[in-house]
């Protein structure tokens, strides 16, 4: 392994220093971390997942199974599982090996490999059963995985882009470029994505002439001519979804302002050209996981891209023509190369190789490798006499088992694959709608064919959009037809481990065992052995594994089939997928009009159903519990001021508004008089209580609904769905005006005195404005509404004015109420006040099974003769069961003990229900609770056992209303 004095597309004038396992090393601008490690003669880059065997680099790009490292950037970024072949080298990087202790050269856990005979596929399904999996789980989980995440949060922002395009071209090799060139010439909007920084794909390391010029010139000319195209270098198309939607991961060269280098694109394309190329698969033979055994295609890339010669004494082993280019290039670079070809007659490529000094051994295959911490020798044997190998000195074994077309995106999009026997490869079957293929994905080895296919695909996409391509297709001299591949799926020697999946440590023996245990389906094989389930997604192991299963089950590969490829093609960080949705931008939150005033008043703000609302207003020296008690007491003693702006305000208008709402609500609403308000339940078709709230009738044809704050959007959607699907003939419409208004409640015995100071033309007398009535008029000169509704049980007034004036009204009411000791109260204090009154909170006291009868609200079912949503469900045997859980009150025996919400109410050790709300009641000077108890209404006065986490206390069942059951305070 060494860096050659010249060659490669690296910038040798820019040296980049980095560290590997604490050692100071250097590379060049343009290196990947992997190429820099190879240039520095780093042989072992990782330890294998299961057996902790030393592993070296196998590949050069996305196919790499071994080179996963812990990587820290100087700016604080950290990736515990960085893929070294895909990471551009940067100065100051600190990389180290993972899955090893104390380090990857000397890994104590390497001892596990000695016991490999006892660790076959599925061993822990068979082994860790007794006494139970949990006995072993924590230790095994500790050993599992590769890198270790750091505990500190990722502070970077991840960028997201959405785009649509006429044509997305995936892969900017010769085929992709030809497609983009043709489509652009016809005026299509084209996006061209390639996962490399440089354009040209295989042309970067395989020199050719195109249109009578060096291919690199053709690439440059083509790119210059792509007018208006979106060019996305270093961008991997990682997912293909329905209707040509794609996920792209762009690795940007630079990022600023705490933005991550990663950007996710979500692209909708009318058409797509998959010019994704092919991935070289390994040969499977004994000892094929030793550091120094590499993909022949990767060896060529390291040589041509980075000027790194991966070995000096090299054996190339192949069963097809492609590895010959590697052998010749290595020989030209000064390496001593011999080539073992499994085919008896390799054909013309062998003559070319021999002319470059490569010793070609036909009908020969590798049968063993040796060397501690890296390759020292290879045993090569004639296929006809595997028992008599010749030992060849080698520090590099470059292998090629043929090409597997990169069909992943086609498969992800639901495309089928077909096995091509002559090519020994899975090819895409019929194209999905709007999908075209070009280049090596079709199995063609020919550059001329790739260019022609690419051009045709671009032209076809243009034609489908009514455009015509007049440009001539790019041309290249025809190459000599290759000698066909001779499949070599594994070597038939007993008792020697042959690796199929390097990343998950799956061997040929594991596949044989799975077949023997009748895991004959490829889907079962995958899950039982974990073949192809590592983060390389089986890019190098998939076909070899299927072929082995076919051999062991006596079937053809076509009959075994293949698993479905799923996104992502390469690992994508969760941060990149989340985009800006983290921290305070994780989820939208609504602010009240008086948000700033609440903060100024010391509010403890919490999120309730998407709204940031005051839980209470904590004063100096108070705990939150103290504040809640003080606020609840003050509202009963004098007056309280509450921000209710988040309560829904849905206006419903039209000649059929009354008829429609009567079909929707459990309660009768058609006989509500204008100016009056009614408390109503809204049910689902199942009869379950979905929401509660007040309904006000503004005019004969106009209502105002006030659903709970978190249910406004849901109630509106439900009403619209019923209107549009079942009652479109009814004339009415809905407007959600919640955001336009600010609403404040003044509640308590002195609320009337405070309101009396208000300048308003609304008659506030009890005759004109009794409980459950409202009036519209001017409030301090502004249009508004005052309603008499109460969720505290006290005389209450709700004032509503345009939202922008809300903060001023809030301050005005505070000033008006100062003499009457008005106290701000928050949601938690309101919850105490309503619990004292036994008023339900939907979703707190009710759940997805609560019917109106459970809450004791049965009159509408008896008296309302019209149909309404949920009615049938209230008449089922289950709804009529006498032992349903009823909403009741509970008084703890110990008045100072507040039982936890969720505590079970038991009798003779059996749960009869549970507590749904509990608190200390300042009005009663004791603890109170509400709950759902079997047949509770018939059992008032009975004592039950309250059980919570082993603690037992006692409570007496009561009516839900703990305070002022006659409701006198409403009028006080």
């Amino acid at each position, binding site marked *: 392994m060494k860096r050659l004095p010249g060659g490669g597309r690296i910038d040798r004038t820019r040296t980049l220093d980095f560290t590997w396992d604490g050692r100071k090393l250097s590379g060049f601008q343009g290196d990947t971390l992997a190429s820099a490690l190879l240039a520095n003669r780093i042989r072992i880059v990782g330890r294998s997942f299961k057996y902790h065997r030393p592993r070296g680099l196998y590949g050069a790009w996305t196919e790499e199974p071994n080179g996963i490292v812990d990587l820290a950037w100087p700016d604080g970024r950290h990736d515990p599982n960085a893929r070294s072949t895909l990471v551009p080298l940067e100065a100051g990087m600190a990389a180290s090996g993972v899955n090893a202790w104390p380090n990857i050269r000397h890994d104590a856990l390497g001892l596990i490999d000695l016991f490999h005979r006892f660790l076959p596929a599925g061993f822990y399904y068979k082994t860790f059963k007794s006494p139970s999996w949990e006995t072993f789980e924590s230790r095994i989980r500790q050993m599992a995985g590769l890198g270790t995440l750091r505990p500190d949060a990722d502070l970077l*922002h991840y*960028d*997201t*882009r*959405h*785009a*649509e395009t006429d044509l997305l071209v995936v892969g900017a090799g010769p085929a992709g470029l030809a497609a983009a060139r043709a489509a652009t010439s016809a005026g299509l909007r084209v996006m061209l994505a390639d996962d490399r920084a440089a354009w040209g794909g295989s042309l970067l390391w395989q020199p050719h002439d195109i249109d009578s010029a060096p291919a690199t010139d053709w690439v440059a000319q083509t790119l210059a001519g792509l007018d208006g195209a979106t060019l996305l270098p270093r961008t991997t198309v990682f997912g293909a979804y329905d209707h040509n939607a794609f996920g792209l991961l762009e690795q940007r060269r630079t990022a*600023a*302002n*705490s*933005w991550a280098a990663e950007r996710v694109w*979500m692209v*909708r394309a009318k058409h797509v050209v998959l010019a994704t190329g092919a991935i070289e698969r390994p040969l499977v033979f004994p000892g094929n996981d030793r550091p120094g055994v590499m993909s022949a295609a990767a060896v060529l890339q390291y040589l041509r891209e980075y000027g790194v010669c991966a070995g000096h004494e090299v054996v190339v082993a192949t069963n097809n023509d492609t590895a010959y280019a590697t052998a010749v290039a290595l020989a030209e670079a000064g390496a001593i190369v011999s080539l073992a070809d499994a085919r008896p007659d390799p054909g013309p490529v062998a003559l070319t190789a021999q002319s470059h000094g490569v010793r070609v051994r036909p009908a020969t295959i590798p049968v063993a490798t040796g060397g501690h911490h890296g390759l020292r020798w290879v045993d090569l044997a004639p296929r006809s006499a595997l028992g008599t190998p010749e030992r060849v000195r080698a520090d590099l074994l470059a292998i090629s088992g043929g090409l597997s077309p990169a069909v992943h995106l086609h498969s992800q999009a639901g495309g089928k694959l077909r096995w091509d026997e002559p090519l020994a490869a899975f090819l895409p079957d019929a194209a999905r709608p709007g999908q075209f293929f070009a280049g090596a994905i079709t199995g063609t080895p020919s550059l001329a064919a790739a260019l022609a296919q690419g051009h045709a695909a671009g032209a076809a996409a243009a034609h489908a959009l009514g455009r015509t391509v007049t440009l001539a297709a790019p041309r290249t001299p025809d190459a000599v037809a290759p000698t066909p591949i001779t499949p070599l799926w594994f070597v038939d020697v007993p008792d020697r481990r042959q690796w199929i999946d390097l990343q998950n440590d799956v061997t040929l023996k594991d596949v044989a065992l799975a077949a023997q245990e009748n895991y004959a389906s490829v889907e079962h094989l995958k899950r039982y052995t974990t073949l192809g389930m590592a983060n390389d997604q089986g890019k190098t192991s998939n076909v070899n594994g299927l072929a082995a299963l076919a051999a062991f089950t006596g079937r053809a590969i076509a009959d075994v089939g293949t698993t479905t490829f799923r996104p992502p093609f390469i690992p994508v960080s969760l941060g990149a997928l989340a*985009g*800006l*949705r983290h921290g*305070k*931008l994780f*989820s*939208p*939150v*609504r*602010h*009240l*009009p008086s*948000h*700033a005033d609440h903060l100024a008043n010391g509010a403890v703000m919490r999120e309730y159903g998407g*709204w940031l609302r005051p839980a209470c207003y904590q004063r100096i020296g108070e705990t939150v519990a103290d504040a809640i008690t003080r606020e609840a007491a003050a509202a009963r003693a004098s007056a309280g001021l509450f921000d209710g702006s*988040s309560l829904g305000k849905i*206006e419903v*208008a*039209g000649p059929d508004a009354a008829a429609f709402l009567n079909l929707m609500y459990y309660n009768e609403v058609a006989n509500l008089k204008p100016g009056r308000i009614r408390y109503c339940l809204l049910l689902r078709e199942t009869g379950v209580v979905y929401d509660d709230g007040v309904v006000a009738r503004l005019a004969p044809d106009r209502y105002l609904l006030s659903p709970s704050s978190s249910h406004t959007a849901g109630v509106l959607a439900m009403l619209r769905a019923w209107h549009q699907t079942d009652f479109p003939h009814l004339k009415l*419409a*809905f*407007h959600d*005006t*919640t*955001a*336009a*208004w600010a609403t404040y409640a003044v509640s308590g015995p002195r609320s009337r005195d405070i309101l009396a100071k208000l*300048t308003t033309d609304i008659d506030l007398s009890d005759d004109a404005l009794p409980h459950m009535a409202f009036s519209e008029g001017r409030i*301090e*000169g*502004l249009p508004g509404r005052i309603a008499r509704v109460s969720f505290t049980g006290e005389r209450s007034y709700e004032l509503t*004015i*345009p*939202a*922008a*004036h*809300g*903060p*001023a*009204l809030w301050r*005005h009411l505070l000033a008006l109420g100062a003499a009457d000791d008005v106290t701000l109260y928050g949601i938690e204090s309101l919850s105490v006040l309503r619990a004292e009154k036994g008023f339900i909170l939907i979703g707190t006291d009710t759940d997805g099974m609560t019917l109106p009868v459970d809450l004791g609200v049965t009159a509408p079912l008896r008296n309302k003769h019209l149909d309404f949503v949920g009615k049938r469900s209230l008449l089922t045997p289950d709804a009529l069961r006498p032992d349903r859980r009823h909403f009741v009150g509970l008084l703890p025996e110990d008045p100072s003990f507040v039982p936890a919400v969720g505590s079970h109410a038991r009798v003779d050790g059996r749960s009869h229900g549970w507590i749904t709300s509990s608190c200390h009641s300042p009005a009663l000077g004791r603890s109170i609770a509400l709950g759902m108890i079997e047949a509770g209404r018939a059992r008032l006065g009975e004592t039950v056992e309250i059980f919570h986490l082993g603690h037992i206390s006692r409570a007496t069942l009561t009516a839900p209303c703990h305070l002022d059951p006659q409701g006198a305070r409403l009028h006080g």
Partner: protein
Amino acid sequence: MADLARTDLTTTITAPGLTIATTTPGRLFLASGITIAPNTIDAGRHWLAPDRVLALGEPPPAGFVSDVTDGFVVLDLTGPAWPTLLSMASTLSPTALAEGHCAQTVFAGLTLLLAAHQGGMRIFVERPLAAWLLDWLTQAATSLA
């Protein structure tokens, strides 16, 4: 009579190629029973749904009309980078916002109304969500630097 003055959100966010500024273009009304072509703006009336518009300016003389002037915060995005910001926030193509067009869609995870406005883009966001959206826009705009 007390003077209950308005409290309005006023903010300007600037980034290379982009200015985001709150604006108060006039009164706003939700109106049902008014039919205009889908996703168009006609005399200040922005299409929301079949037979439903958000009307800017004077209240429509007929139909079911609700004054929602205080229900929205209006933001104007100007400068050549507004389509980039749109592509960060929404799947909607900038071409859908040709002059005279609008769309009620998901933007930064919120359902809101986007409208073409003088070569830029106008956002009508519900007042309670405006503070969160401005946080989002402030953060997103730093990516343009």
